[in-house]
């Protein structure tokens, strides 16, 4: 094991992949300079500017270049600096990358990794803080990966680069700089396998990305009251390891699904729908969702802190699930859609 950070693990894994396979190239805005979080720092020194390509601020074309290169034999890793800017690349990702294999009757494949990062917490405001992964899970042909720690990031990135399909690799800026330990060399993590981080028989907490750590902390708090929470990180959203999640829920009968994205239309909705169908007869309570409220992300510290879901919300949602039917428990409503204000 070595000590590292999430962002270091990304960089080390990219370098390893580029050393092992000449077809791997990295492209994106400022990648040769390392980017704002230094995820690609030093790569240009080792591999040169032909393989580590700085691009203009042209997300659409850059993503399309990566798609074209992937279907022509390279293994591009393209960086979209903030997931908020993926809006500009969606045509290439959704209409080209996701469908090329299918529309060509299997002739083409697009072994592309699109790295990006999301999440709030740095007072960056509504256009640099979003969690938009659910949009991508709606598009057949894309795989969507969302690691919650450095070891999984390294393992999943290795697997994603080797995958013959377009993989959207969603990192979280708030996780980048914590000290963590990872196996050396990193162990590849299969795409489509969840990880159970803590076992328990009373409630299942399914959490994504940054909320995994918060779920573990919430589980500690619940344990103080004798509640055993099981915490599971799906790690990949598409394909989803529903079996692991449903098996747990059939045992506990209660579940919380938690992510930082806006609750409405978030991936938690899909998780809840799939889980209730797979474990309906075992449910003791409605599946509780934790996510962000239905507002854009504010800048002011007091507002952003109130906006971001975390340990408190997960704990509260778990208690609602646990106490369901015992008294007049209210359904958890953090993230409820605010009614539109009446015009005066």
């Amino acid at each position, binding site marked *: 094991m070595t000590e590292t950070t999430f962002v270091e693990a990304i960089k080390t894994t990219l370098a390893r992949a580029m050393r092992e396979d000449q077809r791997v190239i990295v492209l994106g805005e400022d990648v040769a300079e390392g980017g704002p979080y230094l995820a690609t720092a030093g790569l240009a020194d080792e591999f040169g500017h032909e393989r580590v390509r700085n691009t203009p601020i042209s997300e659409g*074309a850059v993503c399309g270049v990566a798609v*074209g290169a992937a279907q022509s034999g390279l293994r591009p890793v393209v960086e979209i600096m903030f997931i908020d800017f993926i809006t500009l690349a969606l045509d290439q990702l959704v209409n080209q990358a996701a469908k090329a294999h299918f529309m*060509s009757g299997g002739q083409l494949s697009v072994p592309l990794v699109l790295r990006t990062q999301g999440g709030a917490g740095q007072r960056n405001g509504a256009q640099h803080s979003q969690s938009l992964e659910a949009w991508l899970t709606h598009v057949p042909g894309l795989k969507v990966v969302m690691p919650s720690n450095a070891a999984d990031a390294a393992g999943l990135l290795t697997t994603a680069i080797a995958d013959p399909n377009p993989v959207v690799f969603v990192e979280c800026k708030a996780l980048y700089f914590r000290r963590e330990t990872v196996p050396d060399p990193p162990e590849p993590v299969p795409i489509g396998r969840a990880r159970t981080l803590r076992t328990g028989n009373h409630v299942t907490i399914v959490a994504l990305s940054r909320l995994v750590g918060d779920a573990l902390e919430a589980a500690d708090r619940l344990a103080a009251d004798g509640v055993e929470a099981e915490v599971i990180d799906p790690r990949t959203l598409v394909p989803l390891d529903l079996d692991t999640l449903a098996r747990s829920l059939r045992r506990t009968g209660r579940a919380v699904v938690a992510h930082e994205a806006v609750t409405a239309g978030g991936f938690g909705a899909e998780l809840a729908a799939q889980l209730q169908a797979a474990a309906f007869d075992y449910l003791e309570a409605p599946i509780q969702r934790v996510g962000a409220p239905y507002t854009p992300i504010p800048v002011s510290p007091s507002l952003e802190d109130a906006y971001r879901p975390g340990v408190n919300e997960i704990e509260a949602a778990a208690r609602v699930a646990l106490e369901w039917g015992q008294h007049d428990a209210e359904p958890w409503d953090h993230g409820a859609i605010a009614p539109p204000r009446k015009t005066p």
Partner: protein
Amino acid sequence: MPASALDADTARDLLRTMWRIRLFEERVAQLKRTLQVHGLIHLSIGGEGVAAAVCRQLRDDDAVYSGHRAHGHAIAKGVPVDGLMAELMGRESGVCKGLGGSMHLVDAERGFMGATGVVGGNLPLALGTALTQHLKGADAVTTVFFGDGAVQAGHFNESINLAALWRLPVIFVCENNGFAEFTSRAEHSTVERVGDVVAPYGFERETVEGSDVPAVYDAFATYLDAARAGNGPFLLECLTFRRRGHYEGDPEKYRDPEADREWARRDPIARFTPVDGETARQIERQAGEEIELAVRFARDSPFPDPELSAQLVYAT
């Protein structure tokens, strides 16, 4: 004007290719009326000269990208017409097994890397293939066809900047037919010539008449040689005409009968006479027979099994 580099055999080939495209598309138009071909169908009748003159010079390892009006480019690049017809008719024996259809034709083995239904969506893909060719150190090149309607799309402007910046071996072939869907170019842009749009990027560029087959051939040949030597990018703007609607079924209320008459006279097949009349008729007849065989081939093919879709969402 200097004599064309076209030799007699090549010229004959070009005529043959144009007839194959013309008769394929006329047959497709008929089949569309009886709903035997499926989906939105965009024909290139009147513009066959560009596809023929460009693709005749390319090898299988040279890549071609096209847009939604792609049948001609595919045929000219060597994609078999039976597989194309079967694709349009939604059959299992189609080049894309019936999953792509008219707007998403692909034949990777022959370097036909793909049509796309999103106007301008193919431009950055072509850059990606050209980048791959460049990094592999091969002399293969990429050609991308697009219409003047794509020029106003963001992808176009991003792509020409990037192609120029990275000096990619890509040849942009713009078929400027003066129409973006139902609307004239004048209503979409104050810049009449696409060559002028790329001028600030330092592109080598030329505008030719698209129905003048030797002119297209020669202009493209120059750029092709240069691109093989590692130079690029280039823009060849071919002024052409869409003798049918934007798609089959287009009410075509915008058409100008005067222009229709003018371009009927400038039709690329009518004005290209490299062989005597009898030989030309024979070429036309043979092309027609080939297309009929393609229709029969497609009709004899089954529709794909409903399970096929789920099998091809992801590569394994």
